[in-house]
């Protein structure tokens, strides 16, 4: 079976495991199998059925976006890796334009 390497912050959802064996003949099938095994991962990898824009999947050293995406075929001994693209943004300077949605929670 192919292996997927889990990024450090998401290992909390895989019982601390850094690497998970997955079934499937394509990257998409492998990811579906991964979230079946560890359902709490889903919200952080997918937005509905789409891969979140900041979630990158690498097959060896290659980004699958530059291959066939989720349809990229994989072999049994392939190594996949989930890499978050870290991104940040400054809030707009005018407080009024931030919208009414609270970003900070008071409770734990």
């Amino acid at each position, binding site marked *: 079976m192919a292996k997927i390497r889990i990024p*450090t*912050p998401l290992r909390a959802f895989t019982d601390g495991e850094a690497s998970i064996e997955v079934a499937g003949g394509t990257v998409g099938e492998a990811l579906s199998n991964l979230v079946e095994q560890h359902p709490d991962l889903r919200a952080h990898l997918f937005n509905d059925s789409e891969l979140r824009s900041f979630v990158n999947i690498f097959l060896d050293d290659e980004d699958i976006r530059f291959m066939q995406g989720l349809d990229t075929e994989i072999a049994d001994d392939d190594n996949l890796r989930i890499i978050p693209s870290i991104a940040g943004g400054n*809030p707009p300077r005018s407080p009024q334009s931030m919208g009414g949605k609270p*970003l900070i929670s008071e409770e734990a």
Partner: protein
Amino acid sequence: MAFLFYGESHQGKNMVIHISHELQREIAEQLEATYPNEGGGFLLGQGAADQMQIVDIVQVDNVFAEAEQHHRYAMRPQDWMRLEDLADERGLSLVGYYHSHPDSSAVPSEYDREHALPNFVYIITAVMMARANDMRAWQLRADRSAFAELALENHLQPQRRGADSAQDA
């Protein structure tokens, strides 16, 4: 000293982040130098569920389009790979990342929330007029709905060892 940020006033009930004065100063100096653009880097550390020690920081280039760098920040996925492997080799973990908010507050934006991961420490530094003046730590809730603030505990290191005896004579 301008580099000291005391987390006590922002204290929450969540995880406590321990960071040395020295590392805070490194972060502040980097982010002041990057001003008016956003800068950032990774946090390497170790810890349990309620206590986290930041052991080292690694500065990473902002690869967002240059015209957007005053309010946007992005790193290459390859930097993540390299740093995660480095942390593993050193027996540490990639525990979080830090970035600046030029001329804005040290509070996460909606953009930050959309791109954030849980179980990861986000240290945000407000840089006003090229001076770092606030540093706060945050963590995304597991349901992605909002950030919770973490207590950032500053640990002073002695300025000069044996200063008392050096002053004699």
